[in-house]
């Protein structure tokens, strides 16, 4: 920390541990912040778009993650710099709100800051730049509203949704299988969506994975998959049309919660106690039987005696099922969760079309697949993949796609991807900038330039000559006033994104612009950084 001296050359100790703090002030602080943010953005730049590359990240305890998802990369990178952390949070909040476009938002923010830097060099006030950006952001989002298209979909006609999800998936490891994967995601979302309220509770979609098998084996289970097996190896492996009882009580003699002690002083009493315990078991199993249950799912365990009895009574059972799964199962099968055997009645049972125990390859791992549930309000996407890293990445990719589908259910407006929306917004901002006098004019122009960072990166990552491709598209957009032209990343031969079927949600795009502008303003507004100097 810089010391202050009085006229006697005596330093003040104004702040606690002053000599252990460092401080950057004024324009240097702004520049240093921009530098940090830019370097974070640069890391992500190569991950953008369908031809974007993945990053391999090793955590402190040696776990390796390979991913293409911006939010995940930044989170795993464990950025220490405070400004860098802002970028991480930026990506995270895009992830929370939209679920997709986490790379794009960081690249955009980085570009905005980069352009701000040159404006700062011209001597512009950082806040004027930020204000210009805000004005430009408004113009850009208004332009998005102008060029957006709506499409209608229904439970039957899912084609538009699938196409949008495919755009999201095309940059991921599952790009090869984007069509089937997109269909899985869309079906899953529509299964749990409340189309009237336009609300989707993502908790109801479970993504379960198992290492092994091919990616193609990934499928949508219209029901639940639980990582459990039947409690007794001799129980039937497949059940059809079963009535399910869901219990949250163990197959054990009930215990009072109050501390208790049973005094046994005679053999008779001991016998009585033993009989009573035995009676409990038979009683419990009998109650299950009486209610008509054909499958018992229990949140807790039960010992071998109970297990044997259940087997004997021909009542298949599953034990140690977690609370979340219990809940999903209850919702899917329409069963009520029963806390006590006394309350088990026929009307509290649920129904499942089929329950199958599935084994995988040569491993002993088994899973239960519960399908054909009457109340399809919970679904599972069952993912297969060659190794754990791929599996995790597929899960993340599917999450992105699911989020996109959800956003479309909420708001079915789309814009065209491949940088088309950015170029169009850039043109609109440039046009608007010409009508503004003052410093903001420059800032808006810078914003327009920064918007082109996305198509530039797209072209670069796809191995196209970035400047040529961008300018060509820009020219055509201007000449034909067609906002659907973008970068032809997949080398299809057309720049028209309508033909390429590359869509993105308006919601996601707007969010990117808002968030990036917001973070820029925040970073530009800081002119004083005080931190512990030994902070590495």
């Amino acid at each position, binding site marked *: 920390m810089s010391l202050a001296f*009085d*006229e*006697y050359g*005596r330093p*003040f*100790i*104004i*702040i*606690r*541990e*002053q000599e252990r703090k460092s401080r950057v002030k004024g324009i240097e*602080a702004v520049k240093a912040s921009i530098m940090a943010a830019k370097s974070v953005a640069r890391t992500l730049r190569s991950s953008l778009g369908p031809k974007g590359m993945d990053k391999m990240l090793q955590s402190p305890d040696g776990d390796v993650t390979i991913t293409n998802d911006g939010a995940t990369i930044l989170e795993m990178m464990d950025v220490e710099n*405070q400004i860098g952390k*802002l970028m991480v*949070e930026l990506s*995270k*909040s*895009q*992830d*929370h*709100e939209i679920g997709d476009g986490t790379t794009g938002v960081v690249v955009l923010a980085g570009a905005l800051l980069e352009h701000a830097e040159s404006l700062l060099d011209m001597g512009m*006030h*950082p806040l004027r730049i930020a204000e210009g950006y805000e004005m430009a952001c408004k113009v850009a989002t208004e332009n998005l509203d102008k060029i957006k298209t709506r499409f209608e979909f229904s439970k039957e006609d899912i084609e538009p949704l699938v196409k949008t999800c495919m755009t999201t998936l095309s940059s991921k490891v599952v790009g090869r299988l984007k069509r089937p994967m997109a269909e899985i995601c869309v079906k899953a979302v529509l299964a749990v969506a409340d189309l009237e309220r336009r*609300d989707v*509770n993502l*908790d109801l979609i479970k993504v379960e994975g198992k290492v092994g098998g091919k990616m193609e084996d990934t499928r949508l289970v219209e029901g639940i998959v639980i990582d459990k097996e039947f409690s007794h190896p001799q129980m039937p492996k497949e059940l059809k049309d079963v009535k399910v009882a869901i219990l949250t009580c163990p197959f054990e003699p009930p215990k*009072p919660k*109050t*501390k*208790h*002690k*049973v*005094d046994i002083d005679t053999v008779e*009493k001991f016998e*009585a*106690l033993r009989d*009573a315990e035995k009676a409990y078991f038979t009683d419990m199993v009998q109650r299950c039987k009486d209610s008509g249950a054909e499958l018992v799912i229990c949140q807790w365990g039960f010992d071998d005696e109970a297990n044997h009895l259940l087997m004997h009574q021909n009542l298949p059972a599953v034990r140690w099922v977690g*609370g979340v799964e*219990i*809940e999903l199962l*209850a919702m899917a099968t329409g069963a*009520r*969760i029963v*806390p*006590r055997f006394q309350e088990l009645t026929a009307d509290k049972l649920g129904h499942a079309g089929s329950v199958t125990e599935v084994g995988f390859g040569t491993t002993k791992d088994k899973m239960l697949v519960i399908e054909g549930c009457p109340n399809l309000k919970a679904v599972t996407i069952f993912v297969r993949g060659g190794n754990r890293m791929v599996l995790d990445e597929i899960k993340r990719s599917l999450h992105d796609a699911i989020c996109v589908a959800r956003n479309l259910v909420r708001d079915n407006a789309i814009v065209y991807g491949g940088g088309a929306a950015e170029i169009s917004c850039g043109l609109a901002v440039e046009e608007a900038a010409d009508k503004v006098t003052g410093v903001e004019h420059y800032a808006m122009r810078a914003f327009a330039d920064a918007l082109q960072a996305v198509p530039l990166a797209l072209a670069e990552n796809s191995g196209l000559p970035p400047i040529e491709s961008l300018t060509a598209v820009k020219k055509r957009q201007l000449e034909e006033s067609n906002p659907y032209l973008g970068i032809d990343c997949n080398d299809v031969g057309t720049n028209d994104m309508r033909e390429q079927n590359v869509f993105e949600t308006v919601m996601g795009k707007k*969010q990117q612009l*808002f*968030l990036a502008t*917001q*973070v820029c*303003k*925040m970073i530009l*507004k*800081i*002119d*004083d*950084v*005080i*931190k*512990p100097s030994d902070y590495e």
Partner: protein
Amino acid sequence: MMPMMGMQPQIILLKEGTDTSQGKPQLISNINACMAVVDTVRTTLGPRGMDKLIHDSRGVTISNDGATIMKLLDIVHPAAKSLVDVSLAQDAEVGDGTTSVVILAGEFLKEAKPFIEEGVHPRSLIKSFRQASVLAVERLKELAISLEDKHMEEKKDLLKKCAMTTLNSKLVSGEKEFFAQMVVDAVSKLDPSTLDLKMVGIKKVQGGGLRDSFLVDGVAFKKTFSYAGFEQQPKSFNDPKILVLNIELELKAEKENAEIRLDDPAKYQSIVDAEWNIIYDKLDKCVASGANIVLSRLPIGDLATQYFADRNVFCAGRVEGNDIERVTKATGAKVQTTVNNLDPKALGTCARFEERQVGAERYNLFMGCPQARTATLVLRGGSEQFIDEADRSLHDAIMIVRRALKHAQVVPGGGAIEMCIAKYLSEYSLQFSNKSQLFIKAYAKALEVIPRQLCNNAGFDATDVLNKLRQKHALADGSGKNFGVDVNTGGVCDTYDAFVWEPALVKVNAIQAATEAACLILSVDETVRNPKSEVPDAASGAAAQAAIAGGRGRGRGGGRGRGMRR
């Protein structure tokens, strides 16, 4: 101790290491220390003010709020600390103007410094400064424009203007109109007699744009921890009955230390049943009361969750205390500590209850409450620091609106009022024929720091603008008295017409507090710092290392102090 003063024997009065410094140099040194602190917050003033990023052991804060910055700077210099207190006091009293007050105090000291150096007795300075502050406040009250007689709708509009002025300098300035409206709506929901700040809840949800923030005319809180079965409960109601409890609804031992001894195994089942009956009895009573929503400050267990799910009742356990309090205020429900004899009157109601997805979280919203004496702001923003800062900014705005509602008097902002008072004081000072004339003039000059700083922060030529302002304010017909800095063009404008308004109370308080702080520092001529007073503080603040560093710093300071006294 440092070897010094040659052969002269030293008389040790105080404990080894005690730092005593006194006299005029000490006073000057204190002033300089204060100036150094003021320099830190100086740049945050006004709509073009910048933010500070402060990184400490508790995390990172990015803020523009004077009080927050001063607090986080962790100032140990005894004189400079009084500036922190002044800022915090302003925050507690009016909630805004925390930067202005520090800058003003600093400027008063700066103006006083040359006089002190020339040998003026601090007391005479203090006397004149106090007098000037009284005059300034009187003048300010004359200039204030009352909104008392305006009608409610109009008043709301005016309040919005005040809130906008406050938000101008904050990170959320891009959306100031949106937020000002929100703040005014929220505050006008409150009980006008108390305007209890606790009744405005601010919830922060990361993600989304600022514009996604919304106001709930009721209560909103995050979904609490839930057990299996929760998702089977209905998630929306119209006109629900709300039962608020302060008991646990869990199957558990009723008495902590009780032990049951059984000698007959046959009785075993009856004990088990008894426990179940207790909990079922409680649950039955909850349902029997006709409630659709059961909230509790204490946990609601899985059994209860499933029981309620079976009966189409929504429940939430472990709701935070202040949320519960606001629910009761809003819905008219009364917190029950037992489920026996539930009075239907103890149940609250609201127009609509809903569980809604906000960003990555699910929120419980109680809307359209009959006695809506409470409101909740749900803030959205890109990052944690961003929302935190938005929260602080809105807090300021809420305080301002609250204050302005009570004392509906405004003054033009943008440095206009300061210029006006400065002119008045410098004219007034001519009535004195003694030293006071000089001092009051200095005080008047110090007031001009506000418009000057506004210009500096915006990158304008301060001297130029200030001269323009002086010219306007000197107009004989008084038509220029509302002129202040126009940060957009770099010129001057009538800030009253431009709706840059600040509640008069903020200014009154700022002037008074700043004068007090300046006088306090001026009246100190000796600092005796006990060596011990620093050590426990430093040790508690950081690791042992910090204590060593603190010790080092003190040792050096002490040595110099003695040297200087010679």
